[in-house]
């Protein structure tokens, strides 16, 4: 078995989720690493888009910010936030990556506050482009740590809509039809969402972990796919690209 860390594993799993010839809205950090890895392997024509305006760049080194000059280096277009967000609203963006401090069974996300809004125990950054991506892109992929304080029955604050209260709720709220959370990738496993109930459902467990580990670290009842698989660990080529080509300084993958 290869030696790898959890960030590397998550990058590989996230990367494999992306299809060639689709557009993905990425934030800095793990999402850009995953998207770049996909481009170098199975998805050479993945279109990477940054919310600040960069469209289809040839990324020379990992950007530190979603808007820095690497995000539109030899891009097909250096546009504006309005342009990118409008394209997403128009249905042209297939995937988006999101992170969160809390998630609930319907994939709703909190990145705003822990505790009451007016006097928070922990003040987090807020929506940023998260609400926009989670509202407008077709499939959102959530990358986050899994434990009982983060995987909760009820959020302290619903920053970004997942499936809200269940089937049809997004559409009733006026959100675009057919959109919503697609995958939740953590240090323990990969979750999807049940088509009928829109509740979170375990798809695969990372090597070395058990169903018990997942349950212990989830603060709500998780649906379990009949045949839960074991996540394929990082392949040698994936690790080589991550460590030697994509993030040699260890800015993201450590």
């Amino acid at each position, binding site marked *: 078995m290869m030696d790898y860390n959890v960030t590397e594993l998550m990058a590989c799993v996230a990367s494999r989720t992306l299809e060639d010839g689709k557009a993905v809205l990425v934030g*800095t*950090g793990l999402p850009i690493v995953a998207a770049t890895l996909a481009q170098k392997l199975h998805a050479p024509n993945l279109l990477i888009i940054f*919310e*600040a*305006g960069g469209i289809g760049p040839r990324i*020379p*080194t990992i950007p*530190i*910010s*979603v*808007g*820095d*000059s690497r*995000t*539109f280096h030899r891009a097909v277009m*250096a*546009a*504006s*936030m*309005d342009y990118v*967000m409008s394209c997403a*609203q128009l249905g042209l963006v297939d995937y988006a990556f999101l992170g969160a401090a809390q998630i609930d069974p319907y994939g709703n996300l909190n990145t*705003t506050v822990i505790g009451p*809004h007016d*006097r*928070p*125990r*922990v*003040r*987090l*950054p*807020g*929506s*940023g*482009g*998260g*609400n*926009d991506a989670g*509202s*407008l892109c077709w499939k959102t992929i959530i990358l986050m740590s899994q434990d009982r304080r983060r995987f909760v029955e009820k959020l302290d*604050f*619903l*920053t*970004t*809509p997942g499936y*809200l209260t269940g089937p049809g*709720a*997004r559409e*009733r*709220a*006026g*959100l*675009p039809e057919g959109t919503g959370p697609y995958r939740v990738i953590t240090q323990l496993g990969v979750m999807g969402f049940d088509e009928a109930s829109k509740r979170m459902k375990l798809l695969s467990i990372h090597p070395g972990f058990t169903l018990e580990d997942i349950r212990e670290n989830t603060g709500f009842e998780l649906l379990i796919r009949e045949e839960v698989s074991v996540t394929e660990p990082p392949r040698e080529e994936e690790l080589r690209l991550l460590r030697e080509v994509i993030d*040699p*300084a*260890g*800015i*993201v*993958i*450590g």
Partner: protein
Amino acid sequence: MRVLEEGRGELLGWLDPDEARRWMAEKKRRLPEDKRMSLKEAVERFTQDGDYFALGGFGHIRVSMAAIYEMIRQGRRNLAMAAKTAVHDVDILIAAGVVDRVECAYSFGHELRGLSPAGRRAAEEGGVRVVAELSNAGFQWRFKAAAMGLPFLPTRVMLGSDTLHYSSARVVEDPFSGKPICLLPACYPDFAFIHVHRCDRYGNAQIDGITVEDSDLARAAKRLIITTERVVEEDRIREAPDRTIIPFYLVDAVCEVPYGSHPGNMPGLYYSDEEHMAEWLSLSRTEEGVKMYLDRYVYSVRDFSEYLELVGGEAKMDHLRRLELLEEPLKAPWARRG
């Protein structure tokens, strides 16, 4: 127009479109005038305690940091900030006691570098109040509504979320589709600073690379101060008018401030100064550290050029230029490997 839902956030910066028109007609002069002045003078004349303001650029990119240091130096108080993707800017302004309210799309974080100790401490201890929540696109389109002279723009973001409940947006039924739609109220900040690559003495300004939301913000701001890497001759602008992002008649002041985005990135010219950023992130863990940083880099210098000397002068700027041009590899002190 029946309102299905109304956010409880404070409605900052909104003007009735007729009030906005009167402001623009009276205060924005269509006469080209030489607007060059020192940043000190521009901050004195165009910013007031209690104002609601916004900054051009995005995160650590093309933000007028020089203006921020100058506002701190002049002791502005009780400002409310349109914290769109606010990072080092809002953090230092909160730490220095300049900003006490934010309308928040993104604050209290430093993107890849982690959370912002100073801003977050203030938010949790009540030193700064988040008076409204919003999303990044929400801010973009609040500015665009203003730029277009409209009371609002519709959008399909925010719906169904607490972000909406704590915003100043409203939900109505779209009369064409019958579906609920979110209306974002126009946002006219009292003032804005936008840092650009070049402009002429009248304020005709050009930006290289992504423009983020600055085309709209420039029209939305009631008072607009351009800080620029270089003031160029008017003819240089007129040679490529399709590169102009901001026309002179929106501009109240032009301040030439080379490296004015330091410690942030200025696309094509210099990359962000991660050493300096790391110093702030480390010092700002304590109030004493904040004081030390402000004393060293803000209060003890007269202007931005003295600050530039302190942070490393020409040698540092050359290094940041080489980083930007990919002639040197980035070493981030806060990164896990080297």
